[in-house]
């Protein structure tokens, strides 16, 4: 049996190379966030930066960071990450990492009446008050659901195209 153990260990050692596995493609999430920003309009936002804040740890932040400083509809994209609700401030988009989804009620309270678009990484969060939340369909494509009522409350307007391509809207 010792021979068998040696073969098993040698095989694993020989092949244990660390490379990223097939996992969630956060680049696609980030791409959709930027496009949502591109196809939305905030009240009185003719000048200034387009601020995107990621609440919690998500690889989407790393992907969004690659877009930092680029122009979206004439606004400079500014991406930052915070860990606490108290640090949210008033960004154009607040992206809630999956691990912070449980704080949705407190987040809504903290941003009530403000033109902050809340995007949830976790599926179904739009039903709890997020303006957008992502959903992975059966064929593994990434789509989004929209809560129009919540967005209207915050006076955020979406292009018809953006709305029409949603998986679900309420």
């Amino acid at each position, binding site marked *: *049996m010792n021979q068998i153990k040696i*073969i098993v260990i040698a*095989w694993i050692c020989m092949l244990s190379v660390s490379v990223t*596995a*097939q996992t969630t493609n956060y680049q696609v999430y980030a791409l959709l966030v930027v*496009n949502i920003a591109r196809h939305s*309009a905030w009240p009185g936002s003719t000048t200034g930066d387009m601020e995107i804040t990621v609440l919690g740890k998500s690889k989407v932040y790393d992907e969004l960071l690659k877009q930092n400083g680029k122009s979206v509809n004439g606004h400079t994209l500014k991406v930052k990450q915070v860990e606490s609700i108290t640090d949210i401030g008033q960004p154009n988009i607040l992206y809630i990492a999956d691990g912070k989804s449980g704080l949705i009620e407190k987040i809504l309270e903290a941003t009530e009446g403000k033109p902050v678009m809340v995007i949830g990484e976790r599926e179904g969060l739009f039903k709890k008050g997020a303006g957008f939340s992502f959903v992975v369909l*059966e064929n593994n494509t990434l789509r989004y659901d929209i809560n129009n009522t919540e967005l209207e409350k915050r006076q955020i307007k979406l292009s018809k*195209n953006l709305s029409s391509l949603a998986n679900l809207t309420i």
Partner: protein
Amino acid sequence: MLKKFARTLLFFLSYFAINAQDLDSLLNLNAFTEESDLQKILNKNVAVSTQKLATRETPSIISIITAEEIRNSGARDITDILRMVPGFDVLQDLQFVMGIGLRGSWANEGKVLVMMDGQPFNELLYQSVAIGNRFPVDAIERIEIIRGPGSAVYGGSAEYGVINIITKATESLNGVVVYGTAGFHADAVGRTNGGVMAASKGEKFSWDFSLFKGKGIVSDQKYQDLFQASDVQDLSKTTHSDPMNINLGLRCKGLSIRTMYDQFETSDPSSNVSFENYYLDVQYKLKLSQKIKLTPRLQYMRQVPWRYDYPDTPGPDFDVKAVRTLGQLDGEIDVNRKININVGALYFKDQSTDRLTDEAMLTLNNFAVYAQALFKHRLANATIGFRFEKNNRYNGAFVPRLALTKKIENLHFKILYSKSFRSPSLQNIQLDTTGAKPEKSNVFEFELGYQFTPKMLLAVNTFYISTNDIIIYGSKGEGDTFKEWYESSSKSGSQGVEVVYSIRKKKWYGQLTYSYSQAIKDNSVGNYVVSQTRKQYAGMLAHKVTLNTNFYLTPKFSVNPTFILGGKRYAFTEIDVDDKPVSTELDPYVLCNVFFNYNDLLPGLTLGAGVYDLFNERPGIPQAYNGGEGAYAPIPGRSREYVVKLSYQINFKK
């Protein structure tokens, strides 16, 4: 002010119009990174699970063997393929008929359901499946194996496992293929098998046809029977193993019809044994709405299994016909994207008739209902299901099933609990001595898997199987004094661990597996016990390591070494002074095989050649229990076999 508003509005609208195309193109973006070749296999929905889940989330421990792996390995028959699967082994039943051992237990009768193109190969008299030089391995598209119970879905023949063989003709072929295999030992021809298959796939109408026929021997070695009642026999001259299969399928919109004839003839030195199966299966997939599908099914099976003949005596010695007529209604309801329900009911009638006396023997009227619900949640997929089956001769069997599975990025887990059962078959009841009742198992399984890279997966699972009221075969005497019977013993089972490490790169792939099984402490089946240890049953491996590797030396030319390391076994190989079988230790073995394959040597022509059992280890195939007065010595393993394979494929124009 109005002008300014109009200008802003115009800018807004025109901007969106310009970018509309961009947005559309985002709709088909995959939420996951690109699939590697390994992931393409792993992410494919597994038909045998009946649920729309990929391998890593299916609520069963699954092995998938692809056509590419079979072709490159040069597998001679189904035995070569199953030996590479963790927990599987091949053992002897009676009369040199070989069956499946799984996870350290003898699983030949009613414990592993074997299907080919949806048709069950377990015969109706004893529910056994004879393997060996059977099944057209070169015609197989994919084999899906559940290395665990499948009774809640598949009923009373799937207590420990399910093997689902899908042929190329039914799945991917749109053309004609002719193929052949020849195997040569030093002093004998091991086998000459060949076949043809043709299929045409259309949106509305499809058909497929396959013919497979072969001729082979059970072994090329010398054999001395356990009681030394006969002279030493040269098995290359006194045994045969001849398969034949004709398979025809038609599909027109929702209607599908399959008919199949299968014959397998084998022998030991003193008797010929044959298995004959005929199937007719008609199904209609009815889509009532987007969410509800119904499939009514009618199936007819006519079999003459275990027909045996001692040439010394006039006429066949056992010749019993078994017939099954089955009606089933299966429903699938997609409640929403997260909830899927599968429900169904079936009735089937099994009848046996002794063809020697033309007397009806037994009729069993069976009915079953089953339901299974899958709930997909972000934390886990939950499967809850059950099956209830009853017939006119025994109390009903209720088997629930619970499973939690989930793939979280690189990690996946499966927590599985199933009750499973083996329903007493026609002969189990006919020859029963202790009151026929369904054998039931409690099976716990846990799997943890981690994908190190897109091309590399490690999965480890443990299992615990406890079987109650186990149906045990017994026999004594021979010829005119031969008697056989069934009795229920209180308990048997096993526990163990299985490890699968897969890697698949562009130019090579490999799979390393390890399986360990151990008999449970309170086993009550005396026939399984050997004197040397209580941890292993007769004939069973405790430790097995397999390594299958394939290297593409050029895009068309590959070399495929495989290794199987089997640990110590204990089997009945001698008799004592009272003529009672005595167990001895069988040495560990290393089976090494090398196969070279050249695809598209000419367009459509594939040529392969290789050596099986390169080191000429010839591990014997022992009987899986103490056969008492009718015990068989292990079938001597085949010697080194040189294998040549040839296939030619012409594709139809689309």
